[in-house]
Structures are given as C-alpha cells and as structure tokens.
C-alpha cells in the first residue's frame, strides 16, 4: 500500500503530530478520502489490479446502461499503453536524465554486475550445450534489467458503449461524488459499492493526476455532452474543467469514458483477458471488442467476442424488503422515506409477503400499544425495536425470485458453447431459494472438453452475472466441486477430463466474504446445497450422454481390443502343443493321448496346424462374436434413439373430401 503518498491533509497532520498530543484535533474524512486510503476494498490493491478493476467497472457500467433501456449491448474497450516520456509530455514535464546514478535504487554495483554477467554466461553455456545435443532449446527469459520502483507504466483506458447515456447536468455528480449512485435500491445489480468509475477516477488522481473525460449522448438529444473533470477528494465534490455541449452529427447514443491510470499490463494481462472471456460466457447477447494498443506491435491484442443471441434476460426489478431481512436502522429509514401514513399501510406496502390480513395479525401480536391506524410518526424507538423483534421471530413466506434476473439456462449454455466449444455441455437452472430474506437463484453448467480448457476442473464463478476471478480457493463453488461431488460416479475423470464448471448465482444481496467481494463463503448451507444440487443435476444429464458415448466407442473398438490379444493367446497355446508334440515323438511308443488329441498333436508336429491356423480360427470367432454384439447393440439402442413423430400420409388416389375454413389470417383444412 502506498497510500502514504496520497497527499491528503489528514495524513500529513497525523504524521506530524507525534505522541505528545498537544491537542487532539477532531477531523472528518470525506467518503472519497476514505476510499482513497482504503482502495484495496474496492479492488485497487496495486497498479495491476487497479487496471483490472478499472476495466471491469467500466464494462459493467456499460452493460447496465445498455440493459436498462433493453438495448443489446455493444461495448468497446481499449487499453492504450503510454510510455513514460509520452506521459511526461502529456503532463508537461520535461524528461530528466539521471546524473548521479548511484542515487537510484536500481543502480548496479560492480559486484552485482560481475555476478549477473557470470550467471548469464553460464546460462548461455548450458543453452549452447543443449543445442549441440539437439535438445529442445528452452526460451530463456531475456534478462530483464532490474526494474526500479519508480518505473511505473501508464495506460489510457477507453470504454465506449451504446447504452442509455447520461443527462448532461448530472454528469459531474455521477463521476465526481463518491457514494452517490443510481443503483442503491434493493435489486440485483452488478456494481459492488456504487463506486464504479469514481474509484477509477480517484485512482487516476492518485497515480497520474490526469482528469477523466466523458462523452455522452442520450436518446432524442441533439447534442453530445462532453465533460472533463476530476474530483476534490477532501470535499468529495467534482472539480469540473470543461463541461460543454457539442455537436452530435452521427446521432450517436451512448457513453464513452476515458481515464489515464497507472497500471501493470504484464502481470494482469491474463486476468483481464479471462475476465473478458468469462463476461462473454455469461452475457452472450453482448458484443465486446477488446483492444490493447502499445508502441510494440507484437504486444498488441485485439479480441472480438461476438454476439450469439438477441435474447436478453429481463431487467432486474427493484423489490421491497423482506421483513426477515431488515434491521432496525433500515426500518427507521423506510419509515422516514415512506409516503404511507399509518402502520397498517406501511407494513402492507413497504414489505413483500405481508398481506393486509397478515399485517393486522402482526399488529395485534405487537402488543396493546399498537393499533393499525396509529401514525407512523408517533412510533417510539422502543416500539420500533418491538417491530424489529417480531420481524425476526415471526414466520413469513419466502420471497419469490421474480425480482431476479438470472442469465437463463439458454444464455448460459450458449455462452459456454460460444466461448469454449466443448464436446458436451449440460446446464441446470434452480428455482429461487432464500437466504436471510434475500432470494437467490443458482444456475450451473458443466462442460466436457473444449478448446483452451485445461485438464481437470476449470471453475467459472459468476455472482449477479459478473465473473469472480480472485480468491477462488475458499469459494463455495470451488469447495463444492472439489470436495462434495463424486465425479467418478458420473463417469467423469476428475484429473484427466477437461471439465468446465460454471456456476452463476444471482441475488438481491450476494453474501460476499472478505473486503474485496471476490468470493462467496462456504459456510452458508442454503447456498452450498443449492450449488451442489445444481452441479449434480448437470452431471446427471452428462452421465447418460457419456455412457452412451462410451458404449459407442466400445462398439467401435471391441474388435480391435479383442484382436490385440490373439497373438498372445494362440502363441501360448501353440507353444504348449508344440512341446507336447515333440515329447510325444520321443516317447512315441507310449500312447499317452486319445485319438483326437493324438491326431491334433500329429498335425502340429507335421506343421499342418501352426500358430497361424490357430490365430485365424480365433480371429474368425472374434469377428463372429463382434458381429453378434453389434447386432445386439443396434437392436437395443437403435429404438430408443429419438422419440418418433407420428406422420400422416395422404392417400394417393382417393377423392379429396375437404372442408376449408377461411379466416382473414389462415385457412383451416379438414380431411375426412
């Protein structure tokens, strides 16, 4: 954490006032300051992760924006690498040459250089030796110069979408004020804290000091808003540089956000690409274009994740609170915000699963001090506690999952097929269940095979339709897949097969663990059992397919597998026969064997029966058995292949006796 660098006033005073505490100054911290100091909470732990989180926040905002107007999302994301010199010129700083080399951390002393050169020479020698021996030469990593601390790399992240856009006047507050957002209601949302792009702005302010640039246009707007702003961290208010309306010739609608931040592409490249790929899996109805641009053309990346469907899950609805999920503070807030006057109406309308009669019963249960018609404003704090207690103890129906918007089996399946191209895939969508008053839905997909899939278990986790990439080990999905599923009972080889496991959980409140909101704990039985059940359901579907496939393969390979052992078996039999025949010759006088056997041995001795004769006969037998088995297989499996449809064939020569029923749209023809 390099938060000590943040030029906050509080920090400075703190560090300057030692323990003497002449006077303890009561300081207040703005939300922006809090997040600037604790940026790891929002996923800005280090430059690399900050780049990753910036990308994901922008992408998720874009998806939300497009989905909110039921528009199929098109998101273009570009990361542009900015060299240090270019960056300096951007901010108007002149490059300085190092004069006193020893001043720097990455200064190489004489001893260190000798050591390094010796090491490199040794490495070269080994390589030359290997090359001489014809071994595959391993690409030795080019000896990197020691990277100093100051050697930061900067990136411009541009995200462009076709979403709703933003109202011209709201733009400064939407970006320049932390903890102000449009997504704070009780509904399934992608965002984590309502930080989104604001956190990226704080990070850009901390690392580069450059402002954020926003262009946006809404439907039926003749102009395009352009805004360049940064944030006043202490006051938590936007600091606007430019805010103007520009011409919008192309009638473009959407938003484009540009931010320049410090980052680390090298270490987080794979994470960012994984994120994009998994996002494409869970949102197959969106089109993504991801570009990485730098000065070195070989490092450039362009990936298009194209749209495969135009079926979009419905927009998640905002819902009311479930009585068993509210706390005292929330009750107070709801009372303050509600338009309802009396207690009965409040209970009936501000919560789910409380009907009028139910509300009356509840009020009766609260005690003699309560009455249905009593004014909300007159409730004492004690009475509020009583309501809260009753909410905790009383039994309510579970909330239904109507307010949730799961990806849907269709989309999940399509996404998996689109991005992984597996050999087999099965999906399952569970019904809504409840954890602490919040409904949740678990959907799962299991795939076998595919391209770019490692052997073993590949776990893809999604929460509220965003991929979770970090802290996989403790997650409920990982634990379940590793420990609680007996893969072999589904004829799946846990180590050898390429297994993809996709679990998507949606809820009005995902019970994340840890500060980073990167995983769902394994201690919630409701979720754990729902995850297990969903995965198992997928496996059951797969099992029948796998068994069929195995049988088919066995059919194909039976003959080959049987024939493989013919030489071993006949060789063994023939050798014994030959030994016997020879011994018989030596003891020719004695007649040890019966007529048939004697005849057989004579033939062996006279080479009339050889190993080949035996092999031929056995091969014939194998062929016959194989044929019979194949026939049996065909009779057994052929019938049950697919359900047959009844078809009706019109007789050729009979007179057509028909009645046509005409309507403006169709004709209904009846045959006699």
């Amino acid at each position, binding site marked *: 954490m390099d938060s000590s660098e943040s030029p906050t006033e509080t920090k400075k005073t703190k560090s300057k006032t030692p323990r003497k505490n002449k006077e303890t100054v009561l300081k207040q911290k703005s939300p922006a300051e809090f997040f600037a100091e604790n940026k790891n909470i929002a996923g800005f732990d280090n430059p690399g992760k900050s780049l990753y989180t910036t990308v994901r926040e922008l992408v998720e905002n874009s998806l939300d924006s497009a989905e909110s107007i039921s528009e199929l999302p098109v998101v273009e994301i570009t990361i542009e690498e900015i060299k240090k010199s270019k960056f300096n010129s951007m901010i108007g700083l002149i490059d300085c040459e190092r004069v006193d080399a020893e001043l720097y951390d990455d200064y190489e002393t004489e001893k260190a250089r000798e050591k390094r050169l010796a090491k490199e020479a040794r490495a070269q020698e080994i390589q030359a030796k290997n090359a001489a021996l014809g071994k595959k030469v391993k690409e030795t990593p080019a000896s990197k110069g020691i990277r100093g601390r100051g050697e930061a790399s900067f990136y411009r992240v541009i995200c462009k979408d076709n979403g709703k856009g933003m109202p011209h006047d709201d733009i400064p507050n939407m970006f320049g004020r932390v903890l102000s957002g449009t997504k704070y209601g009780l509904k399934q949302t992608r965002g984590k804290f309502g930080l989104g792009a604001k956190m990226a702005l704080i990070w850009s302010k901390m690392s580069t000091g450059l402002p954020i640039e926003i262009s946006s246009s809404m439907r039926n707007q003749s102009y395009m808003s352009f805004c360049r702003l940064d944030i006043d961290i202490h006051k938590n208010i936007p600091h606007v540089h430019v805010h103007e309306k520009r011409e919008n010739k192309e009638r473009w609608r959407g938003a484009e956000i540009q931010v320049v931040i410090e980052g680390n592409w090298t270490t987080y490249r794979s994470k960012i690409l994984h994120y994009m790929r998994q996002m494409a899996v869970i949102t197959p109805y969106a089109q993504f274009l991801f570009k990485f641009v730098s000065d070195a053309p070989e490092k450039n990346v362009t990936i298009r994740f194209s749209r495969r469907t135009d079926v979009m899950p419905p927009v998640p609805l905002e819902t009311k609170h479930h009585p068993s999920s509210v706390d005292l503070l929330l009750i107070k807030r709801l009372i303050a915000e509600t338009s309802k006057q009396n207690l009965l109406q409040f209970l009936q309308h501000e919560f789910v699963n409380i009907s009028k009669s139910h509300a009356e019963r509840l009020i009766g249960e609260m005690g003699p001090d309560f009455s249905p018609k009593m004014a909300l404003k007159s409730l004492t704090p004690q009475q509020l506690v009583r309501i809260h207690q009753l909410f905790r103890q009383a039994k309510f129906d579970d909330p239904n999952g109507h307010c949730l918007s799961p990806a849907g089996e269709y989309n999940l399946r399509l996404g998996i097929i689109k991005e992984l191209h597996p050999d087999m895939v099965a999906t399952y969508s569970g019904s809504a269940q409840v954890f602490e008053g919040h409904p949740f839905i678990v959907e799962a997909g299991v795939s076998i095979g595919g391209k770019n899939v490692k052997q073993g278990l590949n776990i893809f986790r999604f929460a509220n339709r965003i991929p979770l990439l970090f802290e996989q080990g403790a997650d409920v999905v990982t634990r379940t897949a590793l420990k609680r599923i007996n893969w072999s009972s589904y004829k799946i080889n846990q180590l050898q097969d390429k297994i993809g496991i996709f679990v998507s959980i949606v809820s009005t409140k995902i019970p994340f663990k840890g500060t980073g909101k990167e995983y769902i704990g394994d201690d919630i039985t409701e979720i754990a059992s729902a995850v297990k059940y969903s995965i198992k359901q997928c496996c059951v579907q797969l099992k029948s397919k796998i068994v069929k496939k195995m049988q088919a393969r*066995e059919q194909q390979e*039976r003959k080959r*597998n*049987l024939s493989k*052992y013919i030489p*071993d*078996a*006949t*060789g*063994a*039999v023939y*050798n*014994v*026969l030959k*030994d*016997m025949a020879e*011994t018989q010759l030596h003891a020719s006088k004695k007649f040890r*064997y019966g007529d*048939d*056997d004697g005849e*057989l041995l004579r033939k062996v001795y006279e080479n009339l*029966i050889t190993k080949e*004769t*035996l092999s031929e*006969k*056995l091969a*014939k*037998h*194998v062929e*016959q*058995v*194989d044929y019979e088995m194949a026939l049996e297989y065909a009779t057994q499996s052929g019938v049950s292949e697919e359900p047959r449809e009844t078809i009706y064939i019109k007789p050729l020569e009979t007179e057509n006796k028909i009645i046509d029923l005409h309507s403006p749209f169709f004709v209904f023809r009846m045959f006699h």
Partner: protein
Amino acid sequence: MAESSKKRRRTNTDDLPFKNKLKPDSAILQTLKDFSTSFSSSSSSSKTLTLQDLSLPFSCREVSDLSLSSVQSNIESLVLRIAHSILSGNGFAFDVPSRAATNQFYVPELDRIVLKDKSSLRPFANISTVRKSAITARILQLVHQLCNKGIHVTKRDLFYTDVKLFQDQIQSDMVLDDVSCMLGCTRSSLNVVAAEKGVVVGRLIFSDNGDMIDCTKMGMGGKAIPPNIDRVGDMQSDALFILLVEKDAAYMRLAEDRFYNRFPCIIVTAKGQPDVATRLFLKKMKMELKLPVLALVDSDPYGLKILSVYGCGSKNMSYDSANLTTPDIKWLGVRPSDLDKYKIPEQCRLPMTEQDIKTGKDMLEEDFVKKNPGWVEELTLMVKTKQKAEIQALSTFGFQYLSEVYLPLKLQQKDWL
C-alpha cells in the same frame, strides 16, 4: 567374557518395573515344560480334521500338492481342450474358480477359511475378460515350460518373461493364483516361488536341500525361510514353544539377546503380513515338532489381522488353506489389556484413527475372532479405549525390557489367550 557382560547388563536392569515378580528362570522353565508336554500329548491324541470328515451343506474347493508330471498333464489336457475349441471355431474360455469374498466360508470346526466351488467363465471373446484369458493362457504355457525343465523361478522372474503383456506384477501374480486354483494344485507345485521374506532363529535343526542347518548358529539375523518348502526336512528341536513375532525389530532384539537360550524356543517372523513360505514353514514345524505357537504382535487391529492370516488363512489363498494355516495360535502379547497392566505410559500409546476403529469393529464381526471369547474381550477393550501400541512401546522401560521382563513374566503367568 560374554557371560560376565550379560550379568552386568542384568544387574543394571534390576529396577525395571515388575522385575521383582519374576520367579527364577528354572521355575518358569518348569511351567513351560508342563505346558509343552500337555500340549503335545493332547495334539497327538486328536486327529486333525479334514474337509471330508465334515459333511458340509456345500462342496468346497481344496487343492493339494501335485507332482510335476501331474501338473504337466493337467495343463496339457487343458490346452488340448482349448486347441480343439479354437479349431472348431468356438473360441475358448477358462473356467476359473472365483476367489471373491462371497465365495469364501469360515469353517469353525476346522478353524480356517475355505473356498466354495463357485466359478466364473473367462471367455476370450469378451471385452472385459479378453486380457485376463490371454494372460492365463500365457501363464499356463510358462508353467508348462517350468514343469518340462523341472526348475523353480520366482514370481518376479515369471513377470519379466512377458512384461509387455502382464504390464504389472500384481496381474501376473493374481492369474498365477487363479491357475493353481484351476489346476487344483498348490502354488508351490507350479514351481513358482516368492522371494524369501521370513526368517527363523532358535533351537531348530533342519535340512535345506540336503544341507543341515542349525538355527542357533545362524548369527543374529537367523536363517531365511526357504521359499519352497519341499526341500525342507528332518526337523529336530528341543524347544518348548514357537514364538511368532510380527515385527523385525522385536525379532532382532530377541535374537540378539539369545532369548532362545534362556527359554528354549524357535523364533519366527515374516516382517509383517506373512508370505506363503513362512506360513508353510510354521505349519510344518508345528505338525512335525508338535509345539505350541505363541504370537507377539502389535496391539492394533492389524496385529490381530496378521494373527488371523497365520491362524485361518487369507481370503486370497483360501483354496490352499489346508496347507497354509496353523490352527491354535495363542495370543501372547501385546494385548490391549497389557497397556494398563504393564503401566505403559500415555506418550507411548497412539490414538487409533477412524480407519483403525472401523477395522477393529469389522474384525469383531469376524468368525475367527468370535470363536475366542478372550480375543473378543481384548478387541472390545481396544475399540473402547481407542488406543493402540506397538511392541516397541515396551522399550520405554529400556530396550531389553521385552526380553528381560515382559516375555518371561508373560510365560511365567501363562498369560496367553
């Protein structure tokens, strides 16, 4: 010199716990002699039962030692039958006796496991048995070759003749047992032996392939038990009992302390699970010398399991249990009740794992345990206390505690079950 050093050692150990309970060696010897004579007289009077003496409700499969030529002719007739079958276009199949657990039966009268006569067909033209039947044919051929030449090879040798087919020694070993079962002869009659594993030391003289061996003069390590029992003969001994030891370490202690000179005995170990040769040797000793057998095993379920293999045979080799089992083995130690009796400190006892406890409970259901109420009591105690201990736990009182105090005291008290 040796005598004096031994004496010094003994004086040092005077303060060992329970040492004072020991009577002079002569008294212990007398008890042992009485026991031994009563044992041999009782065992000589009762004739050993065979399967034929009992009228069991089902038929059993037993094998016997066959001569080389009869093994050879058995193989030959089998091969001829197969050859005819192949030539007539019917492929071939082996009829292999099943050695599955369901086909095993414990006969309390005989005190050993026997094999019932269920068998399974092993056709060549079936994907699940093709491999096994090919291996069976190959093993038959190899054994036939051995019979022709009249030589012995080890199981390892056999495996290496066709590594490509057998792939792994477990497979060739399994089929070898199948073959001996199929031909109705013991595995030793096939001229295939396992590598030497067991060792014997003590008051025993026998001939090995014509050479006389005196097991008191075999140094510390003792004499390796010959893999093929048919070359062993002329057993003589003045021992009063046979001491069966589970572990190599305990065996070494007893051999080095020359325990067999203080109390005339024969000490045998197979270093863990016993192999066929050791079991045959023990059986032969017991039959010819008419000596009681006392066992010293770990106080854990596996110790008892090893005891059971000596006593009533393993399931894998049940077809030959008549030759391999030594009935009436006494459990001398280390028994679960000894842990408290000899005040073995807590730190030398180990907690039993889940698996141990499960094995222990399973064994309580086994017939060979149930027939001996003393064993049931001991095993119940073990499962209840959930503690196990190895023979080496006795070393906590000194390395020689086993040979100086524990065993003599046990013998003096006739503390065996």
